[in-house]
């Protein structure tokens, strides 16, 4: 009976330790958010979002061109990466257990491990050099290469959760393998596939390194894929390393926009994933 007090005390100690350690990771997140908001909130205004940058030395101006550029790069990268990534993910989940899917899976994992700056060089060699100049398309290609493995693996994982019974039900009705995938497997896992795409967009939205020598940045508004475009991470990088105090302020402002965007994507992805819980299981 004497031992029980020691055990209760040990239990409290262990619970307390776990509780404390699990709260620790929240601290950097809270500090980062606090820092960005306190430094950048003063820059945020309607005109900051909707006006173009002023020449160096003049105060004011905004990041409209960077917001448009980031949106452009995301759309370009998605057009390139989503069909390829989803199809490869479908292939991995529906034809598992063969040699080639294993190879594709390993390739996707290796691709995910390539540093983004290296991906940038590749896009530079593939797109910038042949086109004789920095452009949005090159940035889109670089970001797509980063997106593809994320989409492949999340699509695969989500489709593997689709119950085998549903595939059997479809095949037993005389449907082909292809129509089964298209009409039963993908619709059932659609919410999860969408989540994967959103997470991959959140991931590339903040990529800077591969854009430095592809999309390059542009102080003006560019709408053509053959022109260099600005992007929020590039604005932050260029402004923060500039000698102008007003640009430092704007870099903080751009950070808030970028962080808010990524948060929104992640929260949407989580919400969709939660809703999916009901549609994948058959109960």
């Amino acid at each position: 009976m004497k031992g029980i007090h020691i055990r209760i005390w040990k239990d409290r100690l262990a619970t307390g330790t776990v509780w404390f350690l699990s709260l620790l990771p929240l601290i950097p997140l809270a500090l980062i958010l606090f820092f960005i908001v306190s430094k950048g909130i003063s820059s945020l205004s309607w005109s900051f979002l909707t006006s173009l940058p002023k020449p160096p030395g003049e105060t004011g101006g905004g990041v409209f061109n960077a917001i448009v550029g980031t949106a452009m790069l995301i759309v370009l990268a998605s057009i390139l990466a989503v069909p390829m990534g989803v199809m490869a993910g479908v292939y991995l989940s529906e034809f598992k257990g063969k040699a080639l899917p294993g190879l594709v899976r390993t390739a996707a994992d290796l691709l995910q491990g390539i540093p983004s700056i290296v991906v940038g060089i590749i896009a530079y060699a593939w797109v910038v050099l042949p086109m004789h100049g920095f452009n949005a398309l090159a940035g889109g290609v670089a970001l797509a290469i980063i997106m593809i493995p994320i989409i492949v693996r999340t699509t695969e994982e989500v489709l593997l959760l689709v119950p085998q019974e549903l595939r059997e039900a479809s095949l037993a009705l005389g449907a082909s393998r292809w129509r089964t995938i298209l009409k039963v497997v993908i619709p059932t896992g659609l919410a999860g596939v969408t989540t994967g795409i959103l997470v991959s967009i959140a991931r590339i939205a903040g990529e800077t390194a591969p854009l430095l020598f592809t999309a390059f940045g542009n102080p003006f508004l560019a709408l053509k894929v053959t022109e260099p475009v600005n992007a929020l991470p590039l604005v932050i990088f260029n402004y923060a390393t500039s000698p102008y105090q007003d640009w430092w302020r704007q870099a903080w402002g751009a950070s808030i926009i970028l962080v808010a965007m990524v948060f929104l994507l992640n929260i949407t992805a989580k919400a969709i994933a939660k809703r999916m819980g009901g549609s994948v299981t058959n109960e």
Partner: protein
Amino acid sequence: MNNVTLKTENLCAYFGKQQVLKKVNLSIVENKVTAIMGPSGCGKTTLIRCLNRMHETTPGARLTGRIWLKDQDLLSMNPMLVRRKVGMVFQKPNPFPTMSIYNNVLAGYRLNGIRLKKREADRTVEEALRSAALWDEVKDALHKRGTFLSGGQQQRLCIARALAVKPEALLMDEPTSALDPKATDHIERLMAKLKKQVTIVIVTHNIAQAGRISDYTAFMYLGELIEYGTTETLFTAPKDPRTEEYLTGKFG
């Protein structure tokens, strides 16, 4: 003599190197309920999965022998066509969660790219749901998702889905093993009515169920068809000692 819907000749089935069916010769009689019973692992599920060519969808699975669907060689037919003529209901109710009740019933058409006119589609849905004794329960919720139904209702929805394409035979793989006694009773009574329009083959490990619902019974053991005959004869005067032992609960 009765007409035969499905007939196997020396049917052997394998998973890789493991043989799970050994020279099964079985004739399924038209418009009757045939029960296939036997202990776990005896090959009864594999047998009916051969009859609609689902067996071969498992990697490494193959089969030898012959199967006849009426006068057609089932193994030389296109498997997708076979599966439209020989429907299947599974152990666990599996309505498509992304589709409404209405579209679940029509799934056999939709998944095969066959378009029906609105009136024809409506009629097919109603007929199939009436055949599956589900119409009265769902007629006001046809455009809701099928996953909100109870387990027994879901299973009847799956039966309706299989019936909608007007198959010649319906294979049922332990269709009530995931259901409560009341839902089981409902489906058993349904089968007695359904056999007028479609030949039924049911796999069951429940001896009492085989006795209640079937006209013919096949007893399988370790991949072999031990005994086959009318349910009455097999249950009252089994010829093989193994059948008798199984029926009296000595193993299984």
